[in-house]
């Protein structure tokens, strides 16, 4: 009898024993991304191990490598916070020069990508390095204790955007780095979510197989940062998709006119109200008492969809 190939490889590159919180959505990103990457390397080069990882400072870096241990079963380098893309560029240049086959994988959080690392990312994309850059987006600086980033959504509580008499919480709309990356007209840009692991897996494989740079922005829950119970980690990410808060799309070669969407309602009408997404999370608790702010957030989400070429309705 033939043995069916599992849809997701059983090889592991992200070992148990790392120190991420129970329910950490970003740990799921690490595990799935490396699995998908290795499968792509196997299919493309015949060697599942043909890659190295460059990692920015942040939660996933800190929880995975405390001397004398490492959770990584692949070669891994952490250089600093602001430059995963630059470090990956160097690894890739040497990789090529020294005659290795395969591709480089870079990981950074939203802070390490949207803020302090944006310049390095732009350089890496523009120079067309053969790197897949995965931005795991937990929507704040979690490692340093939940400060806002430019990827923090409107209205969210963080320690540097506390709601109060004179503050609604974060008061700027979320920055979508995937769109900035796509403007570099690189071969492949996508967004993804831990709530759709097969979609994420497919996208990482696709990114890994293109020649040249690719960028994936994947939403990953942070249990203490979003103030959600660990067992709701995936559920809350699923609601982000179902309420229209988190778009799933792919943009190839900067072709904004032919964006591919996943899980997008055919009629453009999202069935679940964003309140369902918000109310599961302590970071939005104060917002539920503020219908104007929720309306504002809805408008911003519609604007974001408009940039993607879609008119949507939010209940």
């Amino acid at each position, binding site marked *: 009898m033939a043995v069916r190939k599992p849809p997701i490889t059983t090889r592991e590159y992200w070992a148990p024993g790392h120190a991420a919180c129970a329910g950490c959505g970003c740990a799921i990103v690490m595990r799935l991304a490396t699995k998908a990457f290795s499968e792509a390397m196997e299919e493309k080069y015949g060697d599942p191990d043909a890659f190295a990882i460059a990692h920015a*400072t942040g939660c996933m870096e*800190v929880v995975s*490598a405390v*001397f004398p241990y490492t959770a990584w079963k692949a070669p891994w380098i*952490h250089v*600093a*916070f*602001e430059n995963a893309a630059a470090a990956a560029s160097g690894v890739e240049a040497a990789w090529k020069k020294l005659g290795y086959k395969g591709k480089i994988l870079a990981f950074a959080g939203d802070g390490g990508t*949207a*803020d*302090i690392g*944006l310049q390095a990312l732009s350089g890496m994309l523009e120079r067309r390095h053969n790197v897949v850059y995965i931005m795991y987006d937990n929507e704040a*600086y979690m*490692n*340093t*204790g939940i*400060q*806002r980033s*430019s990827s923090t959504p409107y209205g969210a509580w963080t*320690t*540097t*955007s*506390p*709601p*109060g*008499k*004179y*503050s609604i919480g974060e008061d700027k709309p979320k920055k979508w780095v995937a769109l900035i990356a796509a403007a570099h007209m690189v071969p492949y840009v996508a967004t993804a979510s831990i709530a759709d692991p097969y979609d994420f897996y497919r996208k990482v494989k696709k990114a890994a197989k293109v020649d040249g740079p690719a960028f994936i922005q994947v939403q990953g829950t942070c249990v203490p940062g979003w103030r959600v119970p660990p067992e709701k980690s995936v559920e809350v990410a699923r609601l982000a998709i179902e309420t229209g808060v988190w778009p799933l799309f792919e943009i190839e070669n900067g072709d904004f006119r032919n964006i591919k969407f996943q899980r997008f309602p055919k009629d453009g009408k999202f069935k679940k109200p964003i309140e369902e997404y918000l109310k599961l999370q302590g970071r939005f608790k104060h917002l539920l008492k503020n219908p104007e702010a929720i309306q504002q957030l809805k408008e911003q989400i519609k604007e974001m969809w408009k940039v993607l070429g879609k008119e949507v309705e939010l209940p």
Partner: protein
Amino acid sequence: MVKKVVSGNYAAAYAAKHARVEVVAAYPITPQTSIIEKIAEFIANGESDIQYVPVESEHSAMAACIGASATGARAFTATSAQGLALMHEMLHWASGARLPIVMVDVNRAMAPPWSVWDDQTDSLAQRDTGWMQFYAENNQEVYDGVLMAFKVAEHKDVQLPAMIIESAFILSHTYAIVDMPPQEEIDEFLPPRKPLYTLTDFDNPIAVGALATPADYYEFRYKIAKAMEKAKEVIKEVGKEFGERFGRDYSQMIELYKTEDADIVFMGMGSLMGTVKEAVDVLRREGYKVGAAKVRWFRPFPSEELYELAKNVQGIAVLDRNFSFGQEGILFNEAKGVLYNTDAKPIMKDYIVGIGGRDFTVEDVKKIANDMLKIVESGKLDEEVDWFHLKR
């Protein structure tokens, strides 16, 4: 006076608020974060109307402070280790433009290996950037230091930025009582800034950051050197005034503790000097003639005060929570240099302690005292630099 039980970081945040800082541009980094979180909280609940710029990196934090300060505002930031290193270029821009920015640096070890614990190398590596540096022993000194730093930095003859330095966790996250004077009294001590030049002077528009050829650059540097010299006087004046107003005297750049009749003096900076003072008490009870010299201001360096101290002691044990690779502990190196052309020649030994947050205890000070006594008695220095805690 209001007495509050606060962490070193909250002391810094309160001091910034009480100094009526106008612009804060900052970026989070452990263990500095609670400083800027507290400031964000002040703003959110209406306690303060500081303009807070949540920049996207430390390089931008300092650049924004430079912009704000050049515009005439009182600007403040805080950082630590990696963040301070990323600011490095901008530190030169701040001092070169003669802007009285005040920053709190939470001393933390530089990576790699990654570490978040106490170590002075981050700030000492910035010693040549033209910033004044004050090392706080406790939370009260963090608070007082920020208030004094603005007054010194903004003095018309100084016009240089200043760094107030506190230890990771040992101060930043440890709660202690801090005396905070009433706002009116602080306002009297620290009136609004009177900038000499601003970007808002439309009749005489200024150009900041122009090019200077070899015919002029040299004099620009000389002026900074002179301002740093002058800062010593200003620091003493301001420290004295602070003492008269608020009861805590800072007129000495080196705080001396039981050194009058001491044969051996422990010299160091920052929170570890609290441990040393306690050890001095213990050792004194046991009959040792020892004292402590806490270097408060490292830039400008208190050379004259060091000479006065060194004249009368047989041995100085320098406690360096830092290291300059290829040389020795940084305080040791500087102190030796100061004494070279003088007649004060105590035996000096450098003890590398507490790096990367390694515990440094009263017991350790005792060991050092005994080691130093042996050296002084025999007149023989076994080695100049002692990696004191090394696992052997």
